[in-house]
């Protein structure tokens, strides 16, 4: 069906998409959370009428605006790269994937872009309440846009509510609600936006800590920390809860990803959770070399409990998933590959029969191909039909393992920072804790690291699949030359990096300038 294409092209296409996505995700999380923090501050201003809250709102709004523009630019590229670099994928899943993208545009982007203009330029032109409503609508719009793109991403991780149509050679949606409310989508959405909220809280606390260290804008800094710390604690708790939900879904629909996250090669009952660990060797390319740990600190039976809610549950390892484990009802990938190849052969036979005008054969084949049994037993494994080497089905385990563990540890560090910040700011002792203020500043880059690592876990952990079990990356790419993609990769890398340098420079300068007094100009 799909010819496997030049690996160099596949890898460069993946690199370009990853580059765009990772740059995009440098800017989006701050937008997701600061819009809510700004809206909360403005609500306090409208309720109390105290001008310092307005000044504070405007200051964070300025930083938000600088960050927002570049997020929009990288987002546009991401949307169109589905077509430019992944055209086979675009057709194969456009019937499902396109709908959330279109709804995102209609429901979320217009809301965001319309009310952002009111938010920035409407201070003296609309009523206080209309302005406040606009700020809330920007926050809601930004997070709604996250909902739809994450629904689309979740479908790629867990393709539900769909059936394969042999006539059009693509997947077609059969239940919108299954796509929208799939447990993977719900957890992914909530986990992702709350990670953005946590990053934003870290950002606000870090910048405010700098003001406290410099003994400038002290009142604004304390109040900002108060708002951000409360917002951060609530978000962190939600982040932990949704992280747990996400892990349970991974255990269910992407067990290979879970095995990679925990470096688990051989499954057993009552699996321990590795809290901290390091592989013995990282020099060998083969995943087999990574079986042994240099050291690890484990929590007994905790992985079984987290994954399945049962302390003694069996958690499959990489070898169980590759070789199969009949005792536990796990099919081997060899069996899945055979089934995938049968699906492709039947589809090819159907297309040949149609081309040759053999109505009897094509009619009989289409009946077989569209039957529920064939869809469930064969098309479900369609992607495996393109796999020749079972090693291809194992993601980069060290990368996924370390990314996951560092992300989790950082998440708990941020919660600690929020709790301490709140504790000391409420007791009026924060200004004297210089060491803590320094830590708060240096936590900002760690928050960016954590949120990027989250995507590394999600996306590298599901390799080689662009759509779980249905389509590997090797068959999803556009048929263009690898050189073309190399050129655009370099162009994108240069322009994104240039704009990032500009963004960081402007941001630091605006922070140094600090909030403006009312009536002053800000340019």
């Amino acid at each position, binding site marked *: 069906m799909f010819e496997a294409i030049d690996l160099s092209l596949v890898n460069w296409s993946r690199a370009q998409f990853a580059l765009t996505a990772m740059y995009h995700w440098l800017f989006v999380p701050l937008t997701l959370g600061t819009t809510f923090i700004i809206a909360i501050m403005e609500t306090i201003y409208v309720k109390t009428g105290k001008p310092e809250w307005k000044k504070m709102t405007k200051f964070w709004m300025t930083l938000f605006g600088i960050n927002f523009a570049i997020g929009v630019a990288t987002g546009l590229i991401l949307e*169109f790269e589905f077509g430019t670099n992944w055209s086979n994928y675009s057709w194969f899943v456009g019937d499902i994937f396109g*709908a959330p993208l279109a709804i995102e545009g209609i429901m979320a*982007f217009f809301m965001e872009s319309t009310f952002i203009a009111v938010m920035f330029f409407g201070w*003296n*032109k609309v009523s206080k309440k*209309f302005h406040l409503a606009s700020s809330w609508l920007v926050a809601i719009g930004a997070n709604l846009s996250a909902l739809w793109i994450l629904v689309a991403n979740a479908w790629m991780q867990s393709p539900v509510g769909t059936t394969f149509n042999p006539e*059009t050679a693509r997947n077609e949606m059969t239940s919108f609600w299954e796509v929208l409310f799939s447990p993977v989508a719900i957890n992914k959405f909530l986990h992702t936006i709350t990670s953005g909220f946590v990053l934003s809280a870290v950002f606000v606390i870090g910048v405010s800590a700098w003001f406290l260290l410099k003994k400038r804008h002290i009142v604004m800094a304390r109040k900002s920390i108060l708002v951000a710390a409360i917002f951060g604690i609530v978000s962190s708790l939600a982040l932990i809860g949704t992280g747990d939900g996400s892990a349970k879904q991974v255990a269910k629909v992407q067990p290979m990803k879970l095995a990679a996250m925990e470096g688990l090669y051989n499954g057993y009952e009552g699996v321990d959770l590795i809290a901290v660990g390091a592989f013995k060797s990282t020099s060998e390319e083969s995943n087999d070399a990574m079986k042994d740990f240099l050291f690890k600190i484990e929590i007994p039976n905790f992985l079984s409990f987290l994954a399945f809610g049962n302390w003694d549950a069996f958690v499959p390892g990489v070898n169980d998933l590759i070789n199969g484990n009949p005792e536990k009802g796990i099919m081997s990938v060899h069996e899945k590959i055979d089934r995938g190849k049968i699906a492709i052969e039947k589809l090819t036979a159907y297309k040949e029969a149609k081309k040759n005008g053999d109505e009897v054969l094509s009619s009989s084949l289409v009946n077989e191909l569209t039957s529920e049994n064939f869809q469930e037993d064969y098309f479900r494994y369609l992607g495996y039909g393109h796999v020749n080497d079972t090693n291809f089905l194992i993601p980069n385990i060290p990368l996924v393992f370390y990314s996951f563990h560092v992300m989790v540890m950082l998440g708990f560090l941020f919660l600690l920072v929020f709790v301490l910040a709140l504790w000391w700011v409420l007791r009026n002792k924060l200004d004297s804790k210089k060491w803590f203020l320094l830590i708060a500043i240096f936590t900002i880059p760690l928050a960016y690291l954590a949120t990027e690592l989250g995507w590394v876990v999600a996306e590298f952990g599901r390799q080689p699949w662009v759509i779980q079990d249905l389509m590997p990356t090797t068959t999803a790419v556009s*048929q263009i030359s690898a050189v073309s993609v190399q050129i655009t990769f370099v162009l994108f890398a240069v322009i994104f990096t240039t704009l990032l340098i500009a963004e960081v420079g402007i941001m630091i300068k605006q922070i140094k300038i600090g909030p403006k007094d009312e009536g002053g100009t*800000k340019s």
Partner: protein
Amino acid sequence: MIAAISYSLLQEYWWAIISLLGALLVFLMFVQGGQSLLYTIGKTELQRTMLVNTLGRKWEFTFTTLVTFGGAFFASFPLFYATSFGGAYWVWIAILFSFIIQAVSYEYRTKPANFLGTKVYEAFLFTNGLLGTILIGIAVGTFFNGAQFSLNEYNQVTWQTGARGLEAALNVHNVSLGLAVFFLTRVLALLYFNNSIDDEEISVRTKKHLLINTIPFLIFFLFFVVVLLLKNGFGYNPDTMEVTLEKYKYLHNLIEMPAVLILFLLGTLLVLFGIFNDLFRNPGKGIWFSGIGTVLVVLSLFFIAGYNNTCYYPSAFDLQSSLNIRNSSSSEFTLTVMSWVSLLVPFVIAYIWYAWKSINNKKIDKDEMDSASHKY
């Protein structure tokens, strides 16, 4: 209600939505047109700041419309998305680049420590105004002149030229549409400046350049339309789906769809009346006439590209690979779901209009540039 609509009607409905989004996008590209005029109309730093600020309050609408246009095309006609974007790689990449550099330029242009300097960001805005409009026009031109691709039985695209879509720029008819769009967006921008900026010098310069830009717009537009109506078109038989070249296809489409012909003529008259109004009557109101006219004309062009059994994305290499609204659309189920969502569109338009009116109730002037709490 929507569930009772037939598949073919849903396909037509979604082509109408795509056409409307495309038409709104061309109108909103007055932002790009304005960016190409910054140094022509703004002779001082303050005047350029006024121009940038009046455009800057609208750039996100254009951007959002472009994103929604792309998303809606992906959702409703995914085979076009896969074929054109994956095939005409370099044209779309060039368009995307011109929009990346635009998005940050408004916000960063006058900010201290902006790394590249004000002039570079203004050059970015100009580049987007020039390339974005011309290339989008050329890309839409391929709706009538075809592109060099073929599709296999699995609907996988193979592009037949190494230029990967750039060859469209060698077609005079495509280029005439690109240039017509470029000058039209400049005309619309000048009308918009008249409507939104209160400055005597800018007003005088705007009037002068309105005439200067209207002439090439009319030349390129008329050339495009005359060639379009006289050329062969790509029709298909709805029963066999066989694609054939038909003489005067687009002229026939206009005649066979009189409502579209009326839209086209009315739109053209409104564009001209808007220009005439600002040149000779009551400067400031022309944008509304020309804006609505632009939407109607572009809408009618999309209609004759996709309706009446016409292939909207023809293959000049392999006729039978050509895309039409029947063979390239999403499934009936998906189109039905999205049609429910499309009922939100009037609500979206209503709040955009309300918000736009709320912050545009007074023209931008020098005083506002001095006192604004946030400006570009």
